[in-house]
């Protein structure tokens, strides 16, 4: 455990002493802020119009603002996460510090887990920007907090999955650009997989669509924690980290 914390805190530190952390937080804050602004503006205008026409009951902030916002955040996350994960192993392999890690009395899985956790903390700090925006809604209104919580839980699980894939890809190359590019392509692929379901109704098509990371996110943003989605994410994280550990081991015999 101590080794994991050592590695993890080293990773967190290296994100925050470089501009990477602030750049990512800034970018995410900017994009999410814009979405937030548009969504609330639309909500206010739509709300006023409804009032003037005198129709129906109150509109739900959860349904019209928070759920679509969290959906947007999950897509934006897909684009930014490769920037978090690309350096994890590629940088160490390039600079030779991987020799220090692999010749120290620690286990491979401790290195992998520590690094992934460090990246998760970075991702969470990015999500803080979204939390700050959503908190405003709680300051001026009374949205239901439960779907918000599940939404963020979903974001964490989805981010964790992509980070685990990114960690694995980073461990296969010395080149950060390749690691980032490949992770980004995979993310994109995993996103568009869901589109298959719209024109391919066969079981195979459905199975492929099932692998899309985003379709598993939707229930979370609506406040539903479905076991099958949690299992999907958790097993994907496990698979990614397991493959990373194997890839580290293969460094030794492939060399």
């Amino acid at each position, binding site marked *: 455990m*101590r*080794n994991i914390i*050592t590695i993890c805190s*080293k990773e967190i*530190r*290296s994100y925050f*002493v*470089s501009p990477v952390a602030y750049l990512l937080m800034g970018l995410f804050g900017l994009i999410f802020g814009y979405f937030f602004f548009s969504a609330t503006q639309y909500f206010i205008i739509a709300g006023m119009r409804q009032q003037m026409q005198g129709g129906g009951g109150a509109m739900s902030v959860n349904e019209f603002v928070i759920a679509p916002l969290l959906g947007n955040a999950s897509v934006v996350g897909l684009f930014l996460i490769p920037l978090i994960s690309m350096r994890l192993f590629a940088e160490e392999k390039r*600079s*030779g*510090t*991987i*020799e*220090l*890690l*692999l*010749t*120290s*009395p*620690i*286990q491979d899985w401790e290195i992998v887990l520590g690094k992934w956790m460090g990246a998760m903390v970075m991702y969470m700090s990015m999500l803080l920007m979204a939390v700050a925006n959503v908190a405003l809604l709680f300051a001026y209104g009374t949205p239901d907090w439960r779907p918000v919580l599940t939404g963020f839980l979903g974001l964490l699980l989805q981010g964790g999955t992509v980070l685990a894939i990114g960690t694995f890809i980073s461990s296969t190359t010395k080149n950060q650009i390749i690691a980032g590019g490949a992770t980004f392509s995979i993310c994109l692929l995993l996103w568009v997989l869901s589109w298959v379901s719209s024109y391919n109704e066969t079981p195979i098509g459905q199975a492929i669509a099932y692998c899309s990371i985003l379709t598993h996110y939707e229930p979370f943003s609506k406040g539903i924690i479905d076991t099958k989605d949690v299992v999907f994410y958790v097993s994907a994280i496990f698979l990614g980290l397991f493959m990373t550990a194997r890839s580290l081991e293969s460094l*030794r*015999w*492939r*060399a």
Partner: protein
Amino acid sequence: MITVEGLTKRYARHVAVKNISFEVGKGEIVGFLGKNGAGKTTTMRVLTCFLPPTAGKATVAGFDVLEQPHEVKKNIGYLPETPPVYPEMDVAEYLTFVAKLKGIASGDIAKRVDEVCERTAIADVKNKIIGKLSKGYRQRVGIAQAIIHNPPVLILDEPTSGLDPEQQLHVRELIASLSGDHTIILSTHILSEVEQSCSKVIIINKGEIVAVDSVAALHKRGRTSESVAIEVAGANAVEVRQRLEQVPGVARVISRDAKEGMSGFEVEGLEHAVIRPELARAVVQSGWDLTELKPLGESLEEIFLELTRSEKKEEGAPAQ
């Protein structure tokens, strides 16, 4: 402390180390000598459990590198060819990180960091960012991380490469000062370094050991016959050559470079013949100026070249 038996390491396309065996006793400093690509780094990486051997057995401090890598790792300090430092960290922070990795108890870390900073003379840059340090300092930080957990065995891969002569001297002194407490293997292609700091030399060429000996014994090996470099001014090279060949005890005269008015030769004597005084006399008596007379074949360099050259003839295979 270290035993290697029949160690072979094969990569996809070539064999880096072929069936080598050697032993290193406690407290010895062993120089691992060989050209670039001879298999030094590979051997060290096997000893540090970074790479598994393809065949053969290696033990460090009594632990097998394949069976008990965790124990082996605890007992070695390793400085790879490029010091494994994180440029964005400062020195103290980096050493603290390494200390944690090596499993030093939290309460002792600060003390150990201070000790190794003192030992490697980097206390003055303790709070500087590693990326901004000079190469010499960075190398010493690398040595500091290798000794932080006070391991019985130190493995240093080319500890002085890329340093200027003054920095090399500092690092060599540092290594010499460590020799009391640690068993050290260092690799190098600089021969004078081996002569200065090592008690034993292992010469490796194309993945095979060509000699394991003490420095003194290796010196003796090269000195059964005397060989002399001689430079004469004010004479025709052909004449000088003829005259030198007539000197008693001379086996062979090889022409070297001839500059304007100067001619250089390499003279080899017969076995156990002392030829230097005779050569000097011959030159002076002929009325020429003797500008240089230097004994050859005493440096490790010659022996090294000799040993690695003879291997080449036998094989003729490409190095990589």
